[in-house]
């Protein structure tokens, strides 16, 4: 009912950690975790009189990520101070970019729908707070690590689409190797602006800003909760209060964060310690050349080359490592016709992915190599083994890490395809099942399935079922 009345409008602000060796404005090491306050210096702890020096690699990665999103890189961008008082920020201001960001525009396709981006800008991260009964403890290891913030236009239409948008961003950034985008470790974070409006209306409704969503599931659940909350409020004739709300993952509710009323008055001004960041076209071009083939382009190539469905290609390309595995496996096939590649795709996306999920392994640590799976598929396609036998062999491959041809050899699992052998087996089966044979003669042709089943059982699945089927029909027809 509600869905008919209102539509959801979501804009996301996504922060990703850039994978540099050192921090953005000082040379402290940039890695996750570690002993608290072990990677700090006068600059990132905001001691008086220190000066920030910007990390060239961070600029490169920020430009690379922005280019991957199709943004326009600005030749001149300006750093600004965003001022607020909170213990995770020892300088009492964060160096960010405000009026002149590094990148503007760009877009991401989510399930075929184009989501436009407003901007992408560089900034430094704040530290981490741990709240205890006695007081709050601050760890400045993360302070000053480089971030890229990507701001979308308010064009996302549902909590589900928001989660998928994030997954696509993660996929793109992992392809480019600019960030790990691990939401649990905080190397990808997300704040959302969400509002409702009457269907068909142009003007945006009053929004709330949701923070503290630490997983894809969290984003989906927090936004779904918010849709329900705002719908209920509007339906009883109330108004939405513009405010920041925190997602409480345990209680599965968003709560108003009243303490930060004045927080939005950041009094930005240009950072006097840093001249504008000016980048030359040749620098941008040299970074552009390092961009890999991105998932969306890969999908199109696979669809065209192998005639696979868009869904299959999406699964294969979601992670760069999986796409690399697939491409290596294709290289290992004896034939690369459409049918064989489709069989390979199914084995990778269904059987192998299933195994990896259960074992909680990444594809790079798969117990079955791309070469092994290509060999298995080649054995199926040339008729050496049946699909059913392949499943047994696959299990052994996973457990013992042996090659499929070795397993076939050892276990004597070759498929019976010789015409003579099949004919012999079929004749014997017809003799041994006179009851079924009589039923067949009385016109119940469906019973042939029972005969096939019996043969498959007897041969331990090694007889080729298609051959058995046609041979039985041939023999039975003769006897009619």
């Amino acid at each position, binding site marked *: 009912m509600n869905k008919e009345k209102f539509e959801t409008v979501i804009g996301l602000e996504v922060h990703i950690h850039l994978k540099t*060796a050192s921090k953005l404005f000082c040379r402290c090491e940039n890695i996750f975790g570690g002993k*608290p*306050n072990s990677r700090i210096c006068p600059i990132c702890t905001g001691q008086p009189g220190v000066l920030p020096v910007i990390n*060239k*690699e961070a600029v490169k990665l920020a430009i690379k990520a922005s280019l991957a999103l199709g943004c326009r890189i600005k030749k001149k961008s300006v750093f600004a101070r965003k*001022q607020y008082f909170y213990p995770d920020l020892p300088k009492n201001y964060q160096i960010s970019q405000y009026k002149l960001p590094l990148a503007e525009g760009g877009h991401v396709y989510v399930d075929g729908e184009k989501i436009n981006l407003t901007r992408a800008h560089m900034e430094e991260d704040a530290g981490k707070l741990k709240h205890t009964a006695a*007081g709050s403890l601050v760890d400045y290891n993360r302070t000053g690590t480089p971030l890229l913030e990507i701001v979308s236009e308010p064009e996302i239409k549902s909590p589900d689409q928001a989660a998928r948008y994030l997954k696509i961003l993660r996929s793109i950034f992992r392809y480019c190797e600019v960030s790990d985008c691990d939401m649990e470790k905080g190397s990808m974070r997300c704040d959302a602006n969400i509002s409702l409006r009457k269907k068909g209306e142009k003007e945006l409704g009053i929004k709330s800003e949701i923070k503290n969503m630490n997983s894809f599931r969290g984003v989906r659940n927090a936004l779904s909760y918010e849709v329900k909350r705002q719908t209920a409020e509007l339906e009883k004739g109330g108004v939405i209060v513009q405010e920041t709300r925190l997602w409480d993952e345990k209680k599965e509710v968003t709560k108003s964060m009243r303490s930060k009323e004045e927080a939005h008055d950041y009094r930005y001004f240009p950072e006097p310690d840093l001249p*504008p960041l000016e980048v030359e076209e040749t620098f941008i071009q040299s970074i552009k050349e390092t961009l890999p083939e991105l998932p969306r382009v890969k999908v199109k190539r696979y669809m065209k080359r192998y005639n696979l469905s868009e869904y299959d290609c999406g699964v294969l390309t979601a992670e760069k490592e999986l796409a690399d595995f697939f491409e290596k496996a294709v290289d290992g096939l004896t034939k690369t016709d459409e049918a064989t590649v489709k069989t390979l795709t199914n084995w990778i996306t269904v059987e192998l992915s299933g195994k990896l999920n259960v074992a909680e392994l990444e594809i790079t640590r798969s117990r079955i190599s791309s070469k092994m799976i290509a060999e298995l598929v080649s054995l199926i396609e040339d008729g050496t083994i049946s699909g059913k036998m392949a499943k047994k062999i696959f299990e052994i491959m996973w457990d013992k890490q042996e090659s499929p041809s070795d397993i076939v050899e050892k276990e004597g699992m070759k498929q019976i395809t010789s015409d003579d052998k099949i004919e012999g087996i079929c004749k014997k089966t017809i003799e041994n099942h006179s009851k079924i044979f009589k039923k067949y003669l009385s016109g119940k042709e469906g019973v042939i399935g029972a005969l096939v089943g019996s043969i498959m059982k007897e041969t331990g699945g090694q007889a080729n079922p298609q051959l058995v089927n046609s041979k039985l029909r041939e023999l039975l027809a003769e006897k009619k």
Partner: protein
Amino acid sequence: MDKNEVEKTAKLARLNFSEQEEIPGDFSRQLNKILKYIGQLNNLDTADISPMSQPLVKKLKLADDTSREFKNKEELANNAPDFKDGFYRVKKIIE
């Protein structure tokens, strides 16, 4: 800039005035004088001048991305009002 704006700005900047009530008013008068003085710049025609974010002509220097450990962390801890067991400690923040 009236008294209320001075008070709001002071609050945002965590500046505490003494108890004497006339001080925000004093600041208001002084700030207005400064703003008026600087405001003369508004009379200039800047149509052909691109905005400047800072007065230094120097180009931004970029640093190589090699990490270096800062050794004297003890001194950083000593600068803090309360540092114990590896953490900077602050008053409990209620959210």
